[in-house]
């Protein structure tokens, strides 16, 4: 790779200026390191397979334009979780559906705390005033020994 020497020295200058003008805050590094405590080894991961607010599909554009609720779909082997995220004032309202239907204990986990709700026999659950930020759902279905945790998602 050959680069003009003037580019090289300009990059060196840029490196120094960026380091000085916009260093990564210590708190951001600390938070990244702290993420490790959320490592889970004894639960099935339900990956985020669809996010109505992501991508450039017509549906995503329509969702954003209309201010309609955002729909998230998480999938793990044998279980699917659909979550609608609405905005209510400063918090979020989460309305969820487990498939296959099952009653369950659902914990909405954030960096700062947790909200516990119960899914009814039709697999429906909801939570109000969930603080905006990065969350995941931890789900213990009645009659199942394997808990499910969803991927982290910023709401």
């Amino acid at each position: 790779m050959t680069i003009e020497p003037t580019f090289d020295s300009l990059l060196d200058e840029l490196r120094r200026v960026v380091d000085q003008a916009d260093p990564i805050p210590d708190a951001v590094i600390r938070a990244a390191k702290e993420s490790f405590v959320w490592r889970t080894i004894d639960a099935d991961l339900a990956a985020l397979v669809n996010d109505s607010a992501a991508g450039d599909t017509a549906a995503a554009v329509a969702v954003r334009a209309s201010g309609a609720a955002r729909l998230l779909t998480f999938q793990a082997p044998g279980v699917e979780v659909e979550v609608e995220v609405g905005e209510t004032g400063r918090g979020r309202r989460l309305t969820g559906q487990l498939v296959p239907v099952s009653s369950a204990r659902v914990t909405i986990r954030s960096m700062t705390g947790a909200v516990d709700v119960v899914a009814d026999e039709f697999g429906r659950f909801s939570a109000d005033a969930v603080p905006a930020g990065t969350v995941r759902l931890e789900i213990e279905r009645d009659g199942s020994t394997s808990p499910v945790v969803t991927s982290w998602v910023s709401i």
Partner: protein
Amino acid sequence: MSERTTADLLGAAAAGDRGAWDTLVERHARLVWSIARGYGLSAADAADVSQTAWLRLVEHVGRLRDPQGLVAWLATTTRHECFRVMRRTGREVFAGEGDLDVETGDPTPETVVLDSERDRLLWAALGELPQRCQVLLRAMVCAEPPSYQELAAALGMPVGSIGPTRSRCLDQLKKRLRVREVAVGNTETGET
């Protein structure tokens, strides 16, 4: 002590080695931050994106098929999260090559403390560049500079276009720096 490889660190972290995880963070946190800031996110949004990206890596730490692809994976995850924030805040998400010629017209607003006039001019010039250039150049000057493959992931561009894009972005940076230098009456090159 020899440097531990990424594969080694990922394996150790997956097995619960906190120190290995901390090393991964120390090596790559700046890249994640640079990408988010390069896309013009506020410090608060960039912190949020960074948090989400690292939490996602915790989830996948034992599942990444290709340890060598870690940085590209982090860069891609970061880019997707940035786009989500940009859409939420009603900002245009660029696409295609054409936007290289479009100015952001939005110099970095933060007041920063910089030693010299020349530094201030360079920082201001960077803030004027198209978003894609800001991401590329900021990623390139990270302590752990990413490969072209990894830069391509950060930008969502083909690897083959990174080289030419890099040249154009550096050209533009030089040009804007010169314009600013002339404007303040400082025509020295500053290359001392």
